[in-house]
């Protein structure tokens, strides 16, 4: 199904996460933070609730991803454009679509790998009680999809600018807006000038809403579609931008 070029680019990109410091820094910070916040000693803490589930884990995933995933995506295209290697890549017999897919899938696989590395948390819960594994599995799937959505948005902004910092900031802001689309402060602000219909539409784009249902172990076809559409739409945007701007 996957073309030869996509596979080759995927492999090269994935390898670069393990040969450059970026990959290690990301993994260490992500794994340390998620381990800490899952078992932190606040009011909603794992040990206070005395439930053998991962609700505290999934509660923090969107916020950690919000800060860390754009750091992975920011370099994807900005770096290629800045250093000029994009000219090398896109004069090889590779289409823009294949290159976008290869790079995206590699970064997504890297996020997936980091999620898998959180398995000791699952083991801890399993040791302490009898968790519902299906709920955990669906929660992980949701986290993976959420990571993918953030990455796709990041790909887009990375293609838009040669500057990695700008790409990072734009991605964080946009991901935040889409994550919090259903929250009262944002909705209230928008309701001052937006028609009711668009307001509902905007609210339905809230990523946290779609993610939270999955975090609770509810799998709805609508949520899967939501993430699929978000990822494909932003990747398509990324492709269009690159077609237009690769040379400038």
């Amino acid at each position, binding site marked *: 199904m996957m073309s030869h070029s996509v596979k080759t680019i995927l492999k090269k990109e994935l390898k670069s996460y393990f*040969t*450059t410091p970026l990959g290690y820094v990301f993994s260490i910070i992500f794994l340390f933070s998620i381990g800490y916040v899952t078992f932190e000693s606040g009011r909603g803490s794992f040990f206070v609730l005395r439930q053998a589930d991962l609700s505290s884990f999934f509660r923090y995933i969107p916020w950690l991803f919000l800060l860390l995933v754009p750091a992975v995506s920011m370099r994807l295209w900005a770096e290629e454009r800045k250093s*000029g*290697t994009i000219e*090398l890549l896109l004069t*090889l*017999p*590779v289409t823009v679509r294949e290159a976008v897919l290869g790079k995206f899938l590699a970064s997504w696989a890297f996020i997936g790998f980091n999620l898998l590395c959180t398995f000791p948390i699952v083991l801890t819960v399993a040791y302490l009680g009898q968790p519902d594994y299906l709920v955990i599995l669906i929660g992980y799937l949701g986290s993976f999809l959420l990571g993918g959505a953030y990455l796709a948005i990041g790909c887009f902004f990375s293609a838009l600018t040669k500057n990695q910092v700008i790409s990072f900031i734009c991605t964080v802001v946009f991901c935040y807006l889409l994550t919090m689309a259903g929250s009262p402060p944002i909705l209230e602000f928008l309701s001052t000038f937006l028609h009711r219909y668009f307001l509902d539409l905007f609210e339905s784009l809230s990523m946290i809403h779609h993610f939270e249902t999955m975090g609770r172990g509810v799998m709805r076809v609508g949520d899967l579609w939501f993430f699929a559409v978000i990822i494909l739409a932003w990747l398509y945007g990324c492709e269009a931008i690159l077609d237009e701007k690769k040379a400038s």
Partner: protein
Amino acid sequence: MIRVTELSKSFGEIKAVDKISFEVKEGEVLGFLGPNGAGKSTTMKMITSFISPSGGDATVFGKSILSEPIEVRKKIGYMPENAPLYDDMTVDEFLHYTAQLRGLEKKGQVKAVEKVIEMCALKDVQFQTIETLSKGYKRRTSMAQALIHDPQVLILDEPTDGLDPNQKHDVRTLIKSLAKDKCVILSTHILEEVEAVCTRAIIISSGKKLFDGEASELKEKSSLGRIDDVFRAITTGQEVQGVSL
């Protein structure tokens, strides 16, 4: 063979390339001359189908850059200006990567990499990270990736820029030895280079083609035999050292 017909590119108001037409046959080395910003690189980028033209077309062995860009790229080996490379890879990894993307199979890859490493004298740095290489080695690595699939067409954007005299000599010798059965286009603003390697020269300025002919013709125009004077007379439109055109 490469056939370029009325190729144009505008960036907003600015016409970077204005209806340029020319042909390059097998065995020819075409020198693309012109002052900085004349549109040399833009023309090359269009032929490699990296950017799309605003008007006109170019065909590479019968394949059009407009309708079959991927087929065109398969036939071309391209060395971009300033030789951009993936700094965190080793020379060996990088060449294997391009060989794979060129669609060479496993066995062919190893052979092809060995061959270009030999041709471009990269043996000493084969397993070094590209980041740590000197400018000369970087250029040669970029040259090696352009040659990896033994292309019918070679497009080299300022291949000797920034090299020392020995390295320049080596690169020129390499180009000459390759030219027998390939179409080669190289851009440069070093005029001796045209005499040394090119069979033909095109001079462009402000996006327009001003001269197309053999390198020796260019020299004959000056009574002193100085190509520099002819180049300046053509590109500035003024009389230089008794040469006016």
